[in-house]
């Protein structure tokens, strides 16, 4: 068992955490203003694709990241206005956006680059890893961050920024107020609709970064549906963390290690069809345990709760 905890495990865990963490920060922001964001998967995919397009045509990784953010923000307009001003059901809007992202990126892949499946080209400039020799000898932290892309660092810095903004600034107070009770916040003079739109668009930029890490971070390639469920894992992290970026980050660390462990088991000869399953099983286990703990701490309310009444995830009729 000790042979599993190698420097490589930590490095691949940090790498696996980065996109999920960025996406779950986005999910927390949306959740705080009362917009349940199920579209993280699709937003990341759009980000990943625009990142490759940007990098290919500007010949720079920075151009790729900028394009990834711009693409994801533009795509997020659907959620920003659809779920606020137009009062669409966020569950249905989210599912529709994920499918639109899957179809649109596959379509554009064929039209722009003339290929299907995957696109890789020497013209796509990846982010590259920042090697910090001084750090590499340090156990755990150094193993994890000694050779990572700038986005891996950015993800953790942004976790701090989002937490501070959310809990220590007046804008953050208004955000949380809108999530707790939009009517009350509106009565106190907060422009609820505007805050929601801005929060969803900022979240879109974060998912763009998550997508850029996927397509430009470790490898420089775009593959159809390459977000591969990571957006859904981020949704779960947001749920587990109850829209608190720090708790969500803790959940992401768990999923990142489960993912890294599966890569590790693969290198020891287990077929990847089986090892790929581990992040999802870890997610399910975390949900079950998280629920146990919550019901134990609030046992008084249990009898009043209707089983299965998870109001946010029940779609309204169209």
């Amino acid at each position: 068992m000790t042979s599993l905890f190698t420097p490589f495990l930590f490095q691949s865990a940090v790498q696996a955490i980065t996109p999920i963490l960025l996406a779950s920060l986005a999910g927390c922001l949306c959740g705080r203003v009362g917009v349940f964001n199920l579209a993280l998967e699709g937003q990341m995919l759009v980000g990943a694709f625009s990142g490759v397009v940007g990098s290919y045509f500007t010949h720079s990784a920075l151009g790729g990241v900028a394009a990834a953010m711009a693409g994801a923000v533009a795509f997020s307009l659907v959620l920003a206005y659809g779920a606020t001003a137009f009062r669409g059901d966020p569950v249905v809007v989210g599912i529709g956006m994920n499918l639109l992202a899957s179809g649109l990126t596959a379509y554009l892949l064929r039209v722009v680059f003339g290929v299907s499946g995957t696109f890789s080209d020497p013209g796509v400039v990846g982010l590259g890893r920042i090697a910090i020799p001084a750090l590499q000898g340090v156990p755990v932290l150094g193993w994890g961050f000694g050779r990572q892309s700038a986005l891996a660092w950015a993800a953790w810095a942004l976790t701090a920024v989002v937490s501070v903004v959310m809990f220590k600034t007046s804008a953050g107070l208004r955000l949380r107020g809108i999530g707790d009770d939009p009517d009350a916040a509106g009565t106190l003079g907060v422009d609820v609709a505007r805050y929601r739109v801005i929060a969803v668009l900022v979240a879109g930029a974060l998912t763009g970064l998550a997508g850029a890490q996927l397509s430009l971070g470790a490898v420089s390639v775009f593959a159809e549906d390459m977000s591969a469920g990571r957006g859904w894992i981020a949704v779960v992290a947001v749920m587990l963390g109850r829209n608190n970026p720090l708790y969500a980050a803790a959940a992401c660390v768990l999923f990142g290690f489960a993912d890294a462990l599966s890569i590790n088991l693969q290198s020891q000869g287990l077929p990847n069809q089986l090892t790929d399953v581990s992040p999802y099983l870890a997610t399910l286990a975390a949900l079950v345990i998280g629920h146990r703990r919550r019901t134990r701490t609030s046992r008084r309310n249990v009898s009043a709760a209707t089983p299965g009444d998870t109001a946010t995830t029940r779609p309204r009729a169209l």
Partner: protein
Amino acid sequence: MNGRARWATFAPHLRPPPVALAILFSALAGGALVLVSGYNPLLAFAEIVKGSLSFDSLPDTLNWATPLVGMTLVAAVSLRGGMVNLGGDGQLVIGGLIAALLPLVMPGPGGLVSVSALSTAALGAGLYATLAAWGETRHGIPMLISSLLLSYPAVGVTSYLARFPFRDVTTGLPQTAMIPAAARLYVLSGALNVGSLLIAAIAVTVIFVDRRTVAGYELRMRGNNLRFAGYGGVNLERQAIGTMFISGAIAGLVGAIVVLGSQFRFIDGALLTPAYTWSGLMAALLASGEPAGAILAGLFFAALQTGGFAMQRETSVPRVLTLVLQAIVILFLAIRQGVGTRGR
């Protein structure tokens, strides 16, 4: 009655039907996308219509519609009760694998083998789907999340089984051995087999249960108002588990029909590539889970996708465009419903 009040009385009747408007908008937006990509949208849409509804292509459309309408029912059954089953992919492959393996080991007359393969596939996938319901009722995991997360392990494990222990080593592909000819589904004509009739029968049953039985009424009541259904004496936990069992069982049956009727073996990935689950979910959402409307929407999407093949062949517009069109229809409907009700 002043003018404004009178307008308010008549306005709802003057509003164009939302679904038609959504399809029109989707055609316009999709057409613009095709135009920007340098193709002729009118030509592309003409090929879709010709390639799906002409006399020659109608059997292809019906053949494609069989699994798609099946997966539409999977989504519609759960959606009717306000539950979202996103785990269709996992339930589909479980049914498909069971149906591919059972005929290899079971002796007896072909008809008996295929009937047992179909029913075991339905049972297996149905039980797997109840895990998701159990996750919601006992462990507080929303059905949406639990069903989706359970889908990945099912896909991974069936993929492993088809690639390693049960692989047909005589071929170089990740697939199981061919099932005996006697166990395959009876062919009606051309590509159509008895599986299409089975799905049609299930469709009729679902509509009947929805409209004419107590269980159907209770499920609709749950979909409209969960708490009200609970106060009305519906056992919500049992209902959730039962509904998900039916939903998953239909998915398993669809997987079995594809395997026993057209592929004759479990080919890794072959059940998932056409994305029947997601098209079915969109069709069900289009009709808010109302079965008859959902089936119509499923047929519509099947025609769209079958036409997509012809479009790609004739005009080289990528056929994945049809997925974009479907998604736009759903998004338009979801967003538009708020427009008319704003300010009420």
